[in-house]
């Protein structure tokens, strides 16, 4: 009895490990998973992109990050990600110095323009990134610095 349970658990663990390796090898599509917990837990730009199954990101003039230079309050910082590249499947908004780097991922389809605006919390002044991930697994980014100030007591 006990040995059968153990071996079943072991078998499960092994197949999970194999699946993990297949995913890492790019054979199983990571982005097919609806909510990519690994991407949202990642602590660096590189780790977010890796968790989404794309190669190391390269800077590109065809990707745009919009946002203020100074945010009066880090609780609400308007950030926009856009791209003119073809074959983009995902546009990400990242805040480098946040406890977890990934803020949001927008899946690009033919039905929407690859241009999204949202508002993010910034824990501190940080570089913010727009990352475009293409169908063939390449990643391109644009970044800018957003300074976060602590306002005064009023207003």
């Amino acid at each position, binding site marked *: 009895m006990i040995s059968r349970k153990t071996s079943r658990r072991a078998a499960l663990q092994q197949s999970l490990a194999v699946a993990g390796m297949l995913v890492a090898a790019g054979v199983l599509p990571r982005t097919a998973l609806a909510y990519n917990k690994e991407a949202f837990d990642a602590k660096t730009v590189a780790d977010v992109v890796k968790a989404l199954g794309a190669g190391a990101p390269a800077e590109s003039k065809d990707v745009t990050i919009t946002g203020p230079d100074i945010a009066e309050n880090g609780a609400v910082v308007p950030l926009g990600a856009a791209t003119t590249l073809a074959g983009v499947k995902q546009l990400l908004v990242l805040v480098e110095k946040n406890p*977890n780097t990934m803020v949001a991922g927008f899946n690009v389809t033919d039905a929407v323009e690859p241009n999204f605006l949202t508002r993010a919390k910034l824990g501190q002044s940080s570089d913010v990134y727009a990352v475009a991930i293409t169908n063939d697994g390449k990643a391109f980014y644009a970044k800018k610095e957003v300074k976060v100030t602590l306002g005064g007591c009023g207003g």
Partner: protein
Amino acid sequence: MADPMRIRAQASGGNATVRVLMAHEMETGQRKDASGKTIPAWFIQEVTASLNGKPVLTAEWGPAVSKNPFMQFTVKGAKAGDKIAVTWKDNRGDTRTDEATVS
């Protein structure tokens, strides 16, 4: 039942720019309350939108999206009178759908 979203969809040049305001705490799970207990994470994880019933957008969000989130996107091939529906789902499994007509 969560409070309703505010959706504005404006047609322009064959597309519709959609602006959405959602009522949600977007709790990160990193704050502590007065007694020092961590306030559990509670945030929208998934956002979807459709045009006349056809899915046009899906997005995944983390807790770093601001409280009472704002989102703007542009739907292609939309005109005045079309229906835009937006749905969010949070990490507790709560969900909310609201609709607006493109003006």
